[in-house]
C-alpha cells in the first residue's frame, strides 16, 4: 500500500492549448493526462511538445499526478515526444495502443535509458498503457505483468469498438467482457484498472450510471475529457459511511495489535488479514480525499502489514 495513489479521475488535457494547460493546477481531478496524441493535429505536434515541456517546467508545485500521452512508439512522433517531455519530469507516460506486452517492454527500456541519462532513479517514470483493441484485450493479462513501472491499465473503448467494427452504445453491453478482463488482469497483477472516457459531457446521469457500473466491476477510476465530469465521478467513488466506519475499526485493531506486540490482528473475533487491511487503508485514503475524515494514517503500521 506504500505509494497509494487515488486515480478516480484522470483528465485529458490537450497539449496544444495553453489556456487549458494553465488551468491544470485548479482542476480537482486526481491526475491529468496531457495529450500529445489524438488531440493534437499533425501540423502542431512540434509546437505542442515544446509547449508541454515548458508548462511542466513551470508547474513545479504539482498538486496532482501528471502523465503525458505520447504518440505510439511505432509512429515517427512517439520517440520525439519522450525526448521532449521526460526532462520536464512528468510522473509517467500514458502509452496508447498497447496491443502486446512487448510494446510496453520497449517503452520500459527507453525510459530506463532516459533515467540513466538524466541521472534519475531507475523506475521513476511510471507507465499507464491503454488497452484499446481486441488484440490488446486478449494480451492484457501479460501486459499487466510486463514491467514494474505499470500503475495500471487503461481501457479505451472508442478504439476498442472500432477494432471490433461495432458501435459503442450508452448501455455499454459490448464493453462488458473487455472491461472484466482488464480488471482481472490488473487485480491479478496488483495494479489499478482505469476505465474509458464517457464522451457525452452533457449527460451527467449517463456518466453517473456508467461510473457506478465500472466501480462495481472493480475499476479504480475513469479517464475523462471534460472537467465538469470530475465531481460526478468522485461522488460515485466516495466511500459509504459504513465502509469508512469499518475501515477505521480495522486500523484501530492494527494499532491495538501493535501496542500489544502481537502480529495477530483480530476484529470482533475475526482475523484481519492483509487484503482487509489494504482495502481499509484504500477506503480511508479515499475518504480523506473526499474530506469525509481527517485522521493521520500511521504509515509504519501500514507498511508493517505489507
Amino acid at each position, binding site marked *: 500500500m506504500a505509494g497509494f495513489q487515488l486515480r478516480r479521475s484522470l483528465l485529458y488535457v490537450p497539449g496544444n492549448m495553453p489556456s487549458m494547460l494553465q*488551468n491544470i*493546477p*485548479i*482542476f480537482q481531478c486526481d491526475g491529468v493526462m496531457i495529450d500529445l496524441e489524438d488531440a493534437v493535429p499533425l501540423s502542431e505536434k512540434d509546437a505542442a511538445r515544446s509547449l508541454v515541456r515548458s508548462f511542466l517546467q*513551470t508547474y513545479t508545485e504539482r498538486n496532482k499526478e501528471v502523465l503525458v500521452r505520447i504518440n505510439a512508439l511505432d509512429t515517427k512522433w512517439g520517440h520525439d515526444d519522450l525526448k521532449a517531455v521526460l526532462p520536464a519530469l512528468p510522473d509517467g507516460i500514458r502509452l496508447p495502443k498497447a496491443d502486446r506486452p512487448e510494446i510496453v517492454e520497449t517503452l520500459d527500456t527507453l525510459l530506463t535509458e532516459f533515467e540513466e541519462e538524466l541521472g534519475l532513479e531507475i523506475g521513476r517514470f511510471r507507465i499507464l498503457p491503454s488497452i484499446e483493441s481486441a488484440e490488446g484485450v486478449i494480451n492484457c493479462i501479460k501486459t499487466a505483468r510486463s514491467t514494474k513501472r505499470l500503475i495500471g491499465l487503461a481501457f479505451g473503448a472508442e478504439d476498442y469498438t472500432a477494432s471490433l467494427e461495432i458501435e459503442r452504445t450508452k448501455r455499454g453491453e459490448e464493453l462488458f467482457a473487455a472491461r472484466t478482463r482488464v480488471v482481472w488482469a490488473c487485480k491479478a497483477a496488483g495494479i489499478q484498472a482505469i476505465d474509458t472516457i464517457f464522451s457525452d459531457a452533457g449527460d451527467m446521469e449517463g456518466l453517473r450510471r456508467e461510473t457506478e457500473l465500472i466501480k462495481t466491476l472493480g475499476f479504480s477510476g475513469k479517464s475523462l475529457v471534460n*472537467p*465538469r465530469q470530475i465531481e460526478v465521478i468522485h461522488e460515485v467513488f466516495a466511500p459509504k459511511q459504513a465502509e469508512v466506519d469499518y475501515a477505521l475499526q480495522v486500523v484501530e485493531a492494527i494499532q491495538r495489535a501493535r501496542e500489544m506486540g502481537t502480529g495477530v490482528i483480530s476484529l470482533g473475533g475475526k482475523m484481519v488479514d492483509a487484503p482487509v487491511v489494504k482495502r481499509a487503508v484504500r477506503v480511508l485514503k479515499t475518504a480523506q480525499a473526499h*474530506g469525509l475524515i*481527517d485522521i493521520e494514517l500511521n504509515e509504519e503500521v501500514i507498511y508493517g502489514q505489507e
Partner: protein
Amino acid sequence: MVRNSLGRLLPETFNGRPVLPYADPFSLRLERDHASRPLRRVNPGQSKLLGSLREAVEASGLKDGMTIATHHHLRNGDVLLGQVVREIDALGIRDIRIASSSVHPVHAELIPYIEKGVISAFECGVNGPIGEQASKGELKCPIIVRTHGGRARSIISGEVQVDVAFIAAPTCDEYGNMNGAFGPSACGSLGYAHTDALYAKCVVAVTDNLVPYPAAPISIPQTLIDYVVPVETLGDPKKIVSTTTRITRDPVGLQIAHYAAQVIEASGHLKDGFSFQTGSGGISLAVADNVRRMMREQKVKGSFGCGGITGYFVDMLEEGLFQALFDVQCFDLKAVESIGRNPGHMEISADMYANPFNAGAVVNRLDCVILGATEVDVNFNVNVNTESTGYLLHNTGGHSDTAAGAKLAIIVAPSIRGRLPIVRDELTTVTTPGETVDVVVTERGIAVNEKHVELKRELERRKVPVRDIRQLQEEIYNVTGRPRPLEFEDEVVALIEYRDGSIIDAVRKVKE
C-alpha cells in the same frame, strides 16, 4: 486635489460642485429633511392624456439647464430616452442633465446630442460607448457614477433634483396607474422608477399599452403621475430582458462557484432564515445552483432572495426554499412572468432596496451576496467600473450597496481575465471599499479578509484552498507576469460616488 481614506486622488470640485472625499462605509449622516416636490391638483374630468412626447416635454415645463430621468428596466431594448432627447433637441432646449437609473450601450445614440450641447452631464452611471468616449477625452460630459442605493439617496435627499421623469410604463391607464408585468414591453419590476415618481417635479408616464381604467395591479399609482403619453413602442422586447439566463458550463466558472458555495456553507449563515443575492451571470447562477442543492439537502428554509431577480430565484421561491423575493429589476422572462403571479415575489423600490439614508434598506438584512469584479486589490477593494483599458464601461449597480449591507460579501472572479491578473497592487478604479468585502473567490484559491479569522480557520479545516491574497496574487503573476500600470492624464472625466454621496474615486482620461 485631495486624497480620500483609500488614498485615491480626487479633485476638490467637479462640474461646479464640491467633492466630499470618501472616509468609511458607515459613519456619514445627513442632518436634514428629504426633498420636497410641488403639490398638484387634478380636478374631476381633467385629462392627463397627451398626444405625443413633444406635447409632454412642452407640458412638463422643461427648460435649459434642467434634469430629466428615465429608468433602465428596458435595458438595451430601451428607445424612450433617445426619443425624449430628440424631442428636447427639436424644441431647442439645451444643457440638459441625464439622471436616469442607468444608461446602456443602446444609448450611444445620445452621443451626437452631447456633442451638440443638448446634453451636458450625466448624473448616473453609464454602460458602454458614452463612458468609453468620455474616457478617451472625446466627449465633454461630466459623469457621476452612482450605486442603485446611492441614486435613490441622491434624489430623496435633494442632492439631485429631477425636473421631469419620463417613466416607461409597459402597462398604464389614462390616469397614470401603471405596472411592468404586462404588455409588449413587459419588464417586470419598476423598482428604479418609484423614487422618480415620488420626487420628480413632473412625472410623465409613457406607454405602449394603454389599458382601460383601472390598470391592475398598480405598481406606481395615479397620484404621482402628471401626464400620460401613448407611444407606438417603448422598446425592443427581445433586448428588454433575456429569454433565459444560464448557469455557466465553463469548468473554471464551475470551480469558482463550487468554492463560493463552500464558503457560504462554512460561514454558518446557511440556516433557516438565510437571505441571499446573486447577479445573473453564469458563475453567480452556478453558485445559486449549489446553494439550492445545499438548502434542499439541509432542509434550510430561506427568508428572501433579492436584487435583480432571475427565473432561478423564482424556482427557489416556488420550491419553498425562500419565503419571498424582493425584486428591484427582473433579469429574465420567467421573473417577469412570476411577478404578476406570485404574491411572494414583491416589487420594491431602489430606495427600499439599498438607500443607506432611510430607516433600513433590504440590503442590511442580507446574509450573503455574490458579486463580480474586473479587478481586486490586496486590500480587497474592488473595481467594477473600468476595464483593463482604463475606459469607463460599467455602472456600479448594487455592488457597493450589497457589499456594505450583507454579512458576507463574496467576490467571484476568474483569476485571469484575458491575459491579465485579477488581483492587483493598485486598482484602476475603486468602486467598492475592501472594508465591506469579505471573501474573494477565484479558481486558484480563496482569499479571506483578515477581519474573518474564524471563517478562514473553518475553511482551512474543511481543506478548502485558502490563500493569503498576496500569495494568491503571486501565484497568478507566475502565470501572467506583472502587468504594467495604465497611464492617465490629469483630466477627470467621471467621479465614482460611494452610496453615501462621498467620492470613492475619480476616473481620468486615458493617455493615448
